[in-house]
Each structure stands twice: as structure tokens, then as C-alpha cells.
């Protein structure tokens, strides 16, 4: 897939079909990739596809000007479509280089499995349905279900549905919703009072770095509601009360456009379980409106559209 990608990306730039290529290149840390945003066709040789291509590169589409050749996994490609539904991206301006994705390895989970930090590991390789970790000269094997991101475990669309070039064979979906929703189910099983205490505790760690918001392709407002001063909806001070309001409102704002790419939770430097909120919203949207973000580029976006036949149980 990698060779094909490099070839295609270079060609796109050479032939002037795109102004930019946005993809992944090896990062500066072990088992890390980093976004590559370039106009230079020679940079295409740096593009990689591996189990560590975490970022949702659709995030850059609302910032980069011009035509873009973009490397996307299943979830990311739906973010691109969601942006098209939002009229933020024009379909003809994007060349979607689709990567059928077998799931991305969660370094946090790997670190917990072998109780070592990322930089202390010799190698992490995916072999079929196993993840092999080499550390201190030893080989340790785990089923992939223990090492992939939670949202990858729930993934129904690993292969991009909307694409210009599919870089490999489509991957079958094998979603394990129960495992992916484990944390959410735990929360739903405790009393509202305890749940409130849980979130109060978690959100006390929040430092309002806004990484969750800034990695999210669905968050593209020039001026986020937290930055509004007239009126000041929320104090830009990292108190748990304000942090809680920030998360709740952000979730409502991205409802129907969030594709559960999991970037918000991964980016959080203080490990707040944000996906317990976003995935819950994702599933609620599906349940209430039978809608999943980014499936049909010609469909209107959920929250900006009203149909008379919609259920209206909430106002009776």
C-alpha cells in the first residue's frame, strides 16, 4: 500500500491535480507518525502507512487552501464527507486516497499490557490478529483486540466508502460494540450521583488545552463558543464546572458530525475518557435519528436539516 501511495501522491503533484498532499510520515518518536503536509513532490517518498497512523487528517482540510490529496482511513474519510455535507469542503477539491484500515494500535494500551513505556519497547508488530511486542529481548503476543484503540474495535466502516483511489483491498468490518462501549456501559450502570462525581473528578484534571477540540475535524469554528466574550458562556478558567460545560456543549455541537475517530481522547494529555461522551453521543444520534456521520456526501448534515416525518417525542 505504501509504495502505491507514494507513487500516486507524487503523480498527483507532478500532474498538478492537487496543490497539497496531506499524509503521514515517520514521527520523531518510536512507533509514532506525524502529519506530512507538502507541496513538494519529492516529499512523497516519505509517506507511510503503518499501524500507527493515528491522526484524523481531515482536520487540516478546513485550514489548507487549494486542492488536496489526502490520506484517510475509514473513519477519517467519513470526516471528509461530513465536511462536504457541512459545505466546508468541495468534493472536487479533494482527492481522497483511501486506506482500508485494520485498526490502529493504541500505544497506551500496549504500555499497560507490558507495563513499560513506549520508548522502552524494541518493536511493535501486527501479525494478523495478533500484536507482537518485543521488549527486553522477549517477545510478548497479545490478541489485537487488546491492543487496538477502543473506537477501532467498534469500527463498522474500516474501508473508506468515498474515495478517489483505494490503496488496498477492502477490509471486512468486525465491530465489537460491547468491548468498545465497555467504559460507557460501566458508567450507565452506576447511579447519576456517582456518575456526576466521576465526571467531576475526571474534568478536574482538564487544563483547557483544547487539544480535543483542535484535533477534531468537526470543530472548525473560527471563534469557538468558549472564546466568545459577549456573552461569556463559559469562563476560560480550568475549573471542573467550566470544563464540564465545555465538554457537554462541544459534544452537542459536533453531534451528527463526529465519526468516532477517537482523536479527542487520544490527544488529551491528562487521559480524560472523552470517548465515553462522544461515543455515547454517536450512538444516541444513531438511535434517535438513524444517522451516522459522513456516509453520504449528498445528504444534508443532520443538525441543519429538519424533516416533517421526524419523531417529535421530546415536545409533547
Amino acid at each position: 500500500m505504501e509504495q502505491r501511495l507514494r507513487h500516486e501522491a507524487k503523480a498527483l503533484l507532478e500532474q498538478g491535480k492537487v496543490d497539497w498532499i496531506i499524509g503521514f510520515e515517520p514521527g520523531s518518536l518510536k512507533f509514532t507518525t506525524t502529519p506530512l503536509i507538502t507541496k513538494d513532490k519529492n516529499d512523497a517518498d516519505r509517506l507511510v502507512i503503518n499501524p500507527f497512523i493515528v491522526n484524523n487528517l481531515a482536520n487540516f482540510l478546513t485550514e489548507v487552501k487549494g486542492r488536496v490529496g489526502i490520506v484517510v482511513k475509514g473513519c477519517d474519510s467519513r470526516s471528509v464527507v461530513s465536511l462536504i455535507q457541512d459545505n466546508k469542503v468541495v468534493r472536487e477539491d479533494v482527492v481522497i486516497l483511501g486506506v482500508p484500515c485494520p485498526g490502529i494500535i493504541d500505544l497506551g494500551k500496549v504500555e499497560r499490557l507490558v507495563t513499560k513505556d513506549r520508548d522502552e519497547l524494541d518493536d511493535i508488530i501486527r501479525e494478523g490478529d495478533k500484536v507482537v511486542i518485543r521488549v527486553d529481548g522477549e517477545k510478548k503476543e497479545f490478541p489485537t483486540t487488546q491492543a487496538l484503540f477502543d473506537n477501532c474495535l467498534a469500527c463498522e466502516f474500516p474501508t473508506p466508502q468515498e474515495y478517489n483511489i483505494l490503496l488496498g483491498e477492502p477490509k471486512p468490518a468486525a465491530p465489537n460494540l460491547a468491548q468498545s462501549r465497555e467504559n460507557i456501559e460501566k458508567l450507565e450502570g452506576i447511579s447519576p450521583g456517582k456518575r456526576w462525581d466521576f465526571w467531576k473528578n475526571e474534568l478536574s484534571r482538564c487544563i483547557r488545552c483544547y487539544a480535543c477540540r483542535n484535533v477534531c475535524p468537526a470543530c472548525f469554528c473560527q471563534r469557538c463558543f468558549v472564546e466568545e466574550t459577549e456573552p461569556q458562556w463559559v469562563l476560560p478558567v480550568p475549573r471542573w464546572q467550566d470544563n464540564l460545560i465545555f465538554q457537554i456543549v462541544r459534544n452537542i455541537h459536533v453531534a451528527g458530525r463526529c465519526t468516532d475517530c477517537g482523536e479527542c481522547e487520544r490527544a488529551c494529555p491528562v487521559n480524560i475518557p472523552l470517548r465515553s461522551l462522544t461515543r455515547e453521543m454517536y450512538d444516541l444520534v444513531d438511535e434517535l435519528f438513524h444517522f451516522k456521520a459522513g456516509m453520504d456526501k449528498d445528504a444534508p448534515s443532520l443538525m441543519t436539516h429538519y424533516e416533517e416525518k421526524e419523531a417529535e417525542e421530546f415536545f409533547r
Partner: protein
Amino acid sequence: MAGKKIDKKDIAKLLSQWSQELAVYVPSIESGVATMAKWDGKDTSFLDWYRNTVIPTKASFFPSAEEMFRFQKDNKGYHIELPPSNERKQLIFGVRPCDARALAILDMTFKEAYEDPYYLPKRSSAVLVGLGCTNPYDSCFCTSLGISPAQSTDVDLMLTDIGDEFLIEEITDKGKELIAKATEVKKASKEEEASAKEVKEAAYQKVTRKIDTEGIGDRLLACFDDQDYWERIAAKCISCGICTLLCPTCYCFDINDELVRQQGTRFRSWDSCAFSLYTKMPMENPRAEKWRRVRQKVCHKFKFYPMNFGVIACTGCGRCIRLCPVNWDITQTLESVPVKV
């Protein structure tokens, strides 16, 4: 100066002794996030897993959110009062040399001209017990900034891990006083002192990430107006605040008021030059473009701060590299700055 030592098993006793008069903070982990938290009175398991905290030590003196004062209005007008302060003096156990140096760098800003009345009292009354690294991260680059991972004079006591024991060096009088009455602290032998020296050397060698800081300030100024260069450098940055909020030498803050009917509070909280609206004025925003903000961050740390205070405002702790969601790496940027011919 005769070195001292303490058995690792006796650390809990020492911390207990200190807890009688001081608020003792030790490395703690919650939900996988390492921070300095109030010692619970018994747990010393941090001795096994601790490498460095996510939240830097600055948070102990310059917290992420802080009440500056409270105000109240009655029929006589406004009244202002300071928030109640009943905190004991802090003792922070396990400060890494990079974070300790960072505090010394921060001191310069908070002391200069108008002395900061929130940071300085906490800082001057606190005691720092330094702990040398034995296992630096691959993102650490302290050695390039004149800092040794296992040696520090910015703390009151410096501990070196020599196996089952810590070698203790008394750096300041405050530190001396701390262990003056500690019965668990014994004299160290010459072999133990030599062993500590080896441990420090080994830690130094383990720091493999390096940057060349020779003339870096002037090299940055030379390419200051190269918009193409900075746009390429800034391309993947997402303008969140992780690198700056979690940087031990960053100190930008915001001031905000909260009003609830006739009373309220003025807060100080962490802010970041990386945020898009950081410099926004009503009619213009001098750093509306991302490349200007990234340029500001790098140049402030490696040129502007040294111009004012004579030190680079970076201690190579590597948090920014480890925690950046897009793996933007300041060492890569600094290495890419053209060398003046």
C-alpha cells in the same frame, strides 16, 4: 562534603517526619497521569514507576487556575479581599533537574520589577527534594541546555538512586535542616559516593536527543522574516495549548472575572501564545496566522527570553514532544534553523 544516604525502604519514614510540619507532595498516578499530589501517608510505589510528571512542577507555585481576589458590593461600594490562604509550606519530593531548573528560570519573570504576590511566597517557602533520573525518556534533551539529568543545584536536597539506597547531597541550608534530625539518614561510604557518580554519568549518556544551541538565538532572528520557512514548520501544528501549558518554563496567563449577583472572583489561569485569539485586539490580531504563533513560541524561548534574562527558556524536559497530538518536535525545528554562513 561528606555524602549522606538513606535506604529506599526508609523513605516513607522520612516523608512522615516531614509531613508533620510540611505539606508533602510526591509523584502520584491517577488514570495514567503522573502529577505531584499530596502524599497519602503510606504509598511509596512511585519509587518503582516514576520517570517524570505530566503536569510540571510550576503547577505547585503557579497553578492552572488561581483565585487572585474576591470582591463584593454593598451600599458602601466595592470591597476587595484576598482569598483565604491556609496552606502549609510545601515540600515537593522527586523534582527532576529539568523541572528544578525551570523553576529558577520562571523565578526571573515573577521577581522582575513588580514581584508576583501569588507565585513568590509559595516558591520561597517551599522545599524541593530533587531526584536524579536513571531512565530519561527518548524525548528528553536536557543535556543540550546545560542541565544534567541526575544533578541539580536548583533544589535543596539532591537524591541519586544507587540501587537500594539514595545518596543524599545537601545543596542548601534548608536542605541541611530537613535531614538534620532524620534518624534514617546515614553517612555514605566512599564507594557509595563513587557509585552515585557513575549513576549520574550513565544517566547523562542515556540522553540521546541533542540539539546545537550555539548561536541559536541569532540564527532564529536571521530567518525571522522567512514566511515560507515558518509556514512549513508550522504546517501540522493544531494550535492547541499542550506544549505551552505543560511546559515547565512557560508562564503566560490570563485574567478573568466571574460575577455572581453582587460578588465575584478574579481568576488567573494558564494561557498559551499558541491559541489563535491570544493576541487579538478589537481591530486586528498581530498573530492571526498560525506560522506567526509558532515562530513566536520558538523565538520567545530561544531568543527573546535570553535577551531579557540571559537564559534560554527551555530545559529539555521533552513534554512538548511526548504529548503533542501531532508529534510536532521543537528539536527538529531547531535543528532545521539555517546555520549562518
